[in-house]
């Protein structure tokens, strides 16, 4: 049985400024090219990314990965001005995440940032001469994730589920849907969402959700807190991939808390080849590995489920 009906507690918090571009992004675009971009976006079914390149044409990633150029070219000053506006006029406040290559806006929009990195002791100290801003538009989660919930129930919530796919398929959207599903309804579970980059939380602001949001925590710290001090029943975490995170997941598993996580991979074999993943597989932290693919025209994904026992050694 699923925990609550789909859709409970999911809110559309985006103010949309032309087409499907959120107002926070539309307002930050240079006035000279704003209309061109918004008009191009309005002609598309679904805008996934707006890519602003200094000295090159703007491109929109639309309708499942098609890159569509817009006849608008930004200057360096305009590109840097867009970044300043996206940072609410306070670039310094986002320095830590800019060094990591991104910023996250309040409404869950994630902006990839690249330019000229200046390193100090082998670490990026700052990024200057911004050349590209890749603005990723979040989408309200569609009715999906039922299959994952059934997998969790099949293991009686003793093992987690690892979701994998190449980038841009919809892992984060699926996680949002799962967070809302699991934490709402008459059989709501205590769900902890470890949202390091601040992009999972959008659409999850409903007061009806039984949900703890660990925003900005490093994943390993967030997972540990959720398992040990928040007595969570399910932990949700996006894009794991380091040995430290794998260690934290093992710790949560030992505490009896299942984890739904995602990782970039094209197959189970590729996934288990990653650092720390083989150990997680051996420890049994995940009961199933689920690859996802989009199905054109349908709201739910196509799931490629591989139970732990079925994984070839």
């Amino acid at each position: 049985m699923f925990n609550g009906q789909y859709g409970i507690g999911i809110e559309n918090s985006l103010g949309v400024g032309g087409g499907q571009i959120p107002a926070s992004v539309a307002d930050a675009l240079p006035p000279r090219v704003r209309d061109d971009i918004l008009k191009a976006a309005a002609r598309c079914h679904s805008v996934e990314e707006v890519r602003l390149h200094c000295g090159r044409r703007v491109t929109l990633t639309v309708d499942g990965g098609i890159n569509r150029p817009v006849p608008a070219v930004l200057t360096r000053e305009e590109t840097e001005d867009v970044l300043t506006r996206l940072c609410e006029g306070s670039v310094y406040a986002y320095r830590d995440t800019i060094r990591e290559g991104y910023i996250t806006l309040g409404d869950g929009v994630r902006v990839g940032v690249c330019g000229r990195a200046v390193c100090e002791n082998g670490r990026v100290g700052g990024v200057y001469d911004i050349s590209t801003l890749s603005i990723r538009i979040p989408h309200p989660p569609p009715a999906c994730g039922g299959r994952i919930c059934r997998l969790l129930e099949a293991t009686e919530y003793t093992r987690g589920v690892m979701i994998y796919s190449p980038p841009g398929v919809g892992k984060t959207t699926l996680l949002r849907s799962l967070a809302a599903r699991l934490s709402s309804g008459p059989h709501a579970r205590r769900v902890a969402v470890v949202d390091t980059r601040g992009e999972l939380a959008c659409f999850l602001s409903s007061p009806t959700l039984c949900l703890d949001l660990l925003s900005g925590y490093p994943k390993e710290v967030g997972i540990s807190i959720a398992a040990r001090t928040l007595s969570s029943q399910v932990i949700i975490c996006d894009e794991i991939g380091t040995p430290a995170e794998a260690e934290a997941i093992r710790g949560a598993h030992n505490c009896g808390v299942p984890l739904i996580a995602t990782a970039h991979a094209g197959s189970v074999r590729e996934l288990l080849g990653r650092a720390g993943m083989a150990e997680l597989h051996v420890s049994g932290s995940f009961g199933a590995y689920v690859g996802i693919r989009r199905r054109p025209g349908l709201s739910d994904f196509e799931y490629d489920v591989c139970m732990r026992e079925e994984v070839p050694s």
Partner: protein
Amino acid sequence: MSLQVICRLIGAGLMFGSGLAVLRLMSERERARLYRLDCLIAIVELIRSDISRYLTPIGDIFRRCDPEILAGCLTGCRDAPCPRDMRELYRAMEKGDYAADGGSILGEFARTLGSSYRDEEIRECDVCITELTALRERLACELPVRRRSAGALGFCAMASVVILTL
């Protein structure tokens, strides 16, 4: 005493009173210029401190700023809305009575504030504070002289009008 003399006396009294009021206004205006500079220095120091310690975004700094300091910065700016960031504050000040006092310093500061990283922002704040403090000291030195000159000029003008009236 004839009606004409009474009218002259009343006229002279009114001239004297209005002269005093003008003198007072001039004196207050000089003090207000100084107070506004004090408030501007205070707000830039607050911005520096919040960026240095907490990396607080500019909007949050202005939201949490003491309203009296903000009002002080807008002395002489009639009907100015409460500013939400440095650019808005500068724009409001530009339209005010004392736009010349530190206007160019604030303009440059407002233009660049928030567009770079912490160390650079702190340097910009330090430069702005130093320049505003120097301007404030200059105005403070000039204040007694200005008040004396204004007083002397005003008194002479008032006295000559009274004499002419009588």
